């Protein structure tokens, strides 16, 4: 649901979509614009590579199968010339090893078609901020919730909260991407480091446990469910 993602009000990003399916591309452009970004479109690999090399983008969305120059070659070419713009690879080949091949070619994230537009938006926004300073911060803060990455201490309104190691990592990831939508697959991939498809939604239960620890006795909700998309860590001001 692009409209809901847009309520997050992300910083505007400049995004290049390299995709030969014009209908899919125009839908993507529209969705990204609704989410507050600037999106350009290239219809084949050569054009896409040229645009990516001549203009500055925050994120590239590259389809794997492209006319003239395939998606992986576009990414390899860019990386060889020293460009490190984050790349999200899209593919109809959605299997485990295609993903590995895509990432090895220099992609930063991989999404298989067909996908929910909310999943794409969430990933693009996380990718766009990858080059920020979040990784070197030693503590995160959302509202009155604090997380210390070094001492592994979590406090809300000054009161310590005891978390299991996995709960800590889950919260750490959510807080690192505070004010961004984080999808269930992103959590499975980044917190558990698995890329398979669980038949049942295993993540929701973990979230509700975490939520009960960080919200129950503290009043205002801080970990919100975004319908049809995932979760967002946000202090309601």
């Amino acid at each position, binding site marked *: 649901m692009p409209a809901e993602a847009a309520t997050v009000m992300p910083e505007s990003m400049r995004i290049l979509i390299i995709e030969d399916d014009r209908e899919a591309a125009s839908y993507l452009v529209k969705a990204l614009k609704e989410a507050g970004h600037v999106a350009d479109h290239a219809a084949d690999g050569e054009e896409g590579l040229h645009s990516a090399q001549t203009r500055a983008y925050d994120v590239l969305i590259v389809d794997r199968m492209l006319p003239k120059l395939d998606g992986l070659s576009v990414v390899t070419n860019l990386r060889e010339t020293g460009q490190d713009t984050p790349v999200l690879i899209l593919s109809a080949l*959605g*299997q*485990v*090893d295609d993903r*590995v*091949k895509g990432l*090895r070619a220099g992609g930063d994230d991989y999404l*298989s078609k*067909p996908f*929910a537009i909310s999943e794409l938006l969430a990933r693009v926004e996380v990718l766009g901020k990858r080059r920020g300073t979040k990784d070197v911060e030693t503590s995160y803060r959302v509202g009155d919730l604090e997380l210390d990455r070094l001492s592994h201490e979590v406090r809300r309104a000054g009161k310590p909260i005891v978390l299991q190691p*996995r709960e800590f990592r889950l919260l750490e990831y959510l807080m690192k991407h505070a004010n961004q939508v984080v999808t269930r697959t992103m959590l499975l991939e980044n917190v*558990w*480091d*698995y*890329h*398979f*498809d*669980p*038949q*049942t939604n*295993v993540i929701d*239960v*973990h979230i509700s*446990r975490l939520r009960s620890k960080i919200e129950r006795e503290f009043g205002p909700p801080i970990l919100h469910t975004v319908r*049809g998309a995932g979760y967002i860590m946000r202090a309601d001001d």
Partner: protein
Amino acid sequence: MRMTAVRLSAVYFLLFAICAVVLVFYVTATASTIVEDQSRRAISEELDELAQVYHQGGIIGLVRTIDRRSRQPGASLYLVTDASGRIIAGNVESLQAGVLDRAGPTKNAFSYERYSDSQRERYHLAIAEVVSLPNGMRVLVGRDQSEQVRFRGVVRSALILALALMGVAALIAWFFVGRSALKRLDGVTAASSRILSGDLSERLPVTGAGDEFDRLSANLNTLLARISLLQEGLQQVSDNIAHDLRTPLTRLRTRAEGSLAAPPNAEEAREVMEQMIAECDQMIRTFDALLMISRVEAGSDQVIKSEIDLAAIVADLTDLYEPLAEDAGAELTLECPPEMGVVASRELIAQALSNLIDNALKYATSAERKTRIKVQLASDERQWWIAVSDDGPGIPADKRGRVLERFYRLDQSRTMPGSGLGLSLVQAIAHVHGGRLVLEDAAPGLTVRLEMPLDDRQTGERSDG
């Protein structure tokens, strides 16, 4: 094909014949030389003796000795002539002309006739040495060469016989190679033509002799079996797709059509849309599972394997499902060693275990009682295994094979979410690692065990994509 046999037999025959002829000629030539040398030495020795006799007894003594020796059975050749060439003593009746003209050893064999006790043979061949005495008399001592001539004759006929035998052997070889072995190749050709014309159930003939032909045929048969298995799988998948995806597609279409016919209000529209998206997602899952099964089944080349710690994966997955199990009123326990390194695909093993735990949670739990689900990782010297056991209702023995089939579901009403592909995928993952999936009675409940060989070589180790 038969032409090949004839040509091969002919080439072998010629090769052997040339070798045999060369060998025989070499042997006879060497043997002749040796025998002739021996004869010439014997002749010289005898002449030395006779010279001794001549010095002691003069002409008379010499003639007498020669006369005596001539009469002995099996005697050498002796001839004494006077200066005019008249025969004085000896056992030679006549000689090839000119032999006596030159003193010294004769260069070549010459023909002669001799007086013989038994029979009068003509045209003997001999070699000899001629000595002239001071008074013009000539003394000839020689050795008969008929033995050697006979020896050559024997060798020649042996050679002819051998060549004839080889000819026969070549014919027999052609018969066997052409009529027997190559006939089998013809059989293979015929069978492969039938296979080419579309009958994949046809197999190449295997005689059971265990020779090269059999091994080739057996390998090709294995290949054919694999191809027809893949083809059957493909057939089954397309049937299943037709059956299992048409149903949700029909629902989707009906829903869209219904909304179009009677436009719902905003809230209803949203609900319908969400249902339709959920329906699409389920179909995408089914498609993904199908694709994954067929890619995994296509062979180990499609799968990236690396050195992984199984214990960590099993612990991760148990950890991932533990809260879900608790919510479903089940107790999920883990039994595993602290570490177990194997070469396998991390994502596929995780996917398989996820499917197994998910199945146990779906089908073994009940509202009335606490279900116990145990995840076990263990190994012995040959294999490692992951077992997921529950104490739920289990699966009747006669249905255990069927649940591994694609789209088969025990729950025919299909009220449970799921594609009916979970176990098929686990089985495909087992196969690509050279292992198997075993379903057993846990009394009560079900044990599903993923058994994998520790020796990964049989599936072709692959550590890189």
